[in-house]
């Protein structure tokens, strides 16, 4: 243990190889999803002639920018299944990766501020329980027991009328998670290649046969897109149109404080969510900026609204200093659920549309993507999350449980 309980890591985590001219599988994007996919391709399917190509630095996209909230209290059966699969993997991930990831199951509260919020929350708790997901409905007094610094006074403009509570939910140290997956994949023989931007694809009829990159063409038996907010930019190169819109999403941290905040609190109605990082910063997120954007920064008025909500809900934060803010680019789908699976192109696999909430899915989606790639067929957990659902109408509407306005 070194600084405030943050464990030290090995000095070298992965090799930095030159790209080979051909791989069995090329994964585009070394965020958590791409790295987890590589890990489970090796571990579950013995597929190791794999490259993960990253245009920037490893896990420097949304993986480095997110607020690390992990939970599985989604409404629909399809979502509960894939997020709960992920949560179970999180519970054993330190052992699997052989590295600390500071996964801390401190519980998540989703606050209700109106009668409609209460009804929606109670409905979600019932649905969660039927799906084997731990969930409880808490009264305002019970909310105060779990998190004493939440202002439960009835005099608030948006009073706290109750909350859903998932005790097994929590946070993890995002960088360590990415590096843990990277280290394991690297040890299994996967090439992690940074500073290598994919600019297009090579095709043979309706089969994708490789990628063009800033470091030359690379042939691939199979290509998996794990590029988060930039997925539609890539798919455009194939004339493949996706039902995605990319938005800036911001977060910020305060200075370091003594431990004051024991859990994670989210509020969909007043657009703020807060946890306290292991070192002591308050980590806060907001809703997405309304407009499309790729600039990795957001508008100041979003921060202003977020701070107003935070200070009303947590009067104790009123004098905390804001240390820094940043933005990521998230790809939002029309039903606020991801798109994971096959495409009209043979050998091309999609993993996108996770919007504001894909960190929590990292091990689960990596597991399912690896299965999809290895068997050329979706895993039962990602089978419902097809591109076709926008035509068939089998949408998985999770706007209510996504817990961030978008």
């Amino acid at each position, binding site marked *: 243990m070194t600084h405030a309980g943050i464990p030290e890591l090995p000095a070298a985590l992965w090799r930095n190889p030159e790209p080979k001219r051909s791989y069995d599988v090329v994964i585009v994007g070394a965020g958590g999803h791409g790295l987890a996919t590589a890990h489970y391709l090796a571990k579950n399917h013995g597929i190791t002639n794999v490259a993960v190509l990253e245009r920037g630095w490893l896990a420097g996209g949304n993986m480095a920018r997110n607020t690390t909230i992990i939970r599985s209290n989604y409404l629909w059966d399809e979502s509960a299944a894939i997020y709960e699969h992920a949560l179970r993997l999180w519970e054993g991930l330190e052992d699997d990766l052989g590295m600390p990831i500071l996964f801390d199951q401190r519980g998540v509260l989703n606050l209700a501020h109106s009668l409609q919020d209460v009804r929606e929350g109670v409905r979600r708790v019932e649905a969660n329980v039927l799906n084997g997901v731990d969930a409880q409905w808490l009264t305002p007094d019970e909310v105060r027991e779990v998190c004493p610094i939440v202002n439960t006074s009835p005099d608030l403009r948006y009073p706290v009328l109750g909350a859903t509570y998932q005790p097994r939910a929590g946070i993890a140290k995002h960088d360590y998670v990415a590096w843990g997956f990277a280290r394991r994949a690297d040890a299994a023989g996967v090439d992690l290649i940074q500073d290598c931007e994919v600019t297009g694809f090579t095709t043979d009829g309706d089969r994708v046969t490789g990628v063009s990159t800033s470091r030359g063409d690379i042939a691939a038996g199979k290509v998996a897109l794990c590029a988060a907010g930039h997925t539609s*930019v890539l798919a455009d190169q194939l004339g493949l149109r996706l*039902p995605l819109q*990319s938005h800036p999403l911001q977060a910020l941290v305060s200075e370091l404080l003594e431990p004051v905040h024991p859990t994670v609190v989210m509020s969909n109605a007043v657009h703020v969510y807060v946890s306290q990082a292991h070192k002591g910063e308050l980590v806060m997120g907001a809703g997405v900026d309304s407009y*499309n*954007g*790729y600039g990795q920064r957001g508008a*100041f008025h979003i921060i202003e609204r977020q701070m107003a909500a935070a200070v009303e809900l947590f009067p104790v934060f009123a004098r905390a200093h804001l240390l820094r803010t940043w933005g990521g680019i998230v790809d939002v789908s029309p039903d606020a659920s991801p798109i994971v699976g096959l495409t009209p192109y043979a050998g091309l696999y999609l993993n996108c549309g996770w919007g504001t909430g894909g960190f929590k899915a990292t091990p689960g989606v990596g597991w399912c993507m690896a299965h999809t790639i290895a068997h050329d067929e979706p895993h039962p957990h990602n089978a419902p999350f097809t591109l076709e659902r*926008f*035509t*068939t109408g089998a949408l998985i509407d999770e706007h209510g449980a996504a817990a961030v306005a978008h």
Partner: protein
Amino acid sequence: MQLIECPWCGPREEVEFHYGGQAHVAYPADPATLTDEEWARYLFFRDNPKGTFAERWQHAAGCRRWFNAVRDTATYRFQAVYRPDEPRPEI
């Protein structure tokens, strides 16, 4: 926060505006003949370019009128604003 030019009111602060997504998406001319695939395209699929994008905005806290803008989604810079009955300007 940036100033956005309403074609009727002039430059106003961003908080006065509401975003409406891609511009020039026409309602289907003959809706009864559309296939499921064509309905899906109309309802759910929009362009998502990194760069120049023609989109709709409403001056919600001002004159409440809709207008179109050409904006760069990488820099967020507005390149043109124009009224709904005007054609998309060449940039």
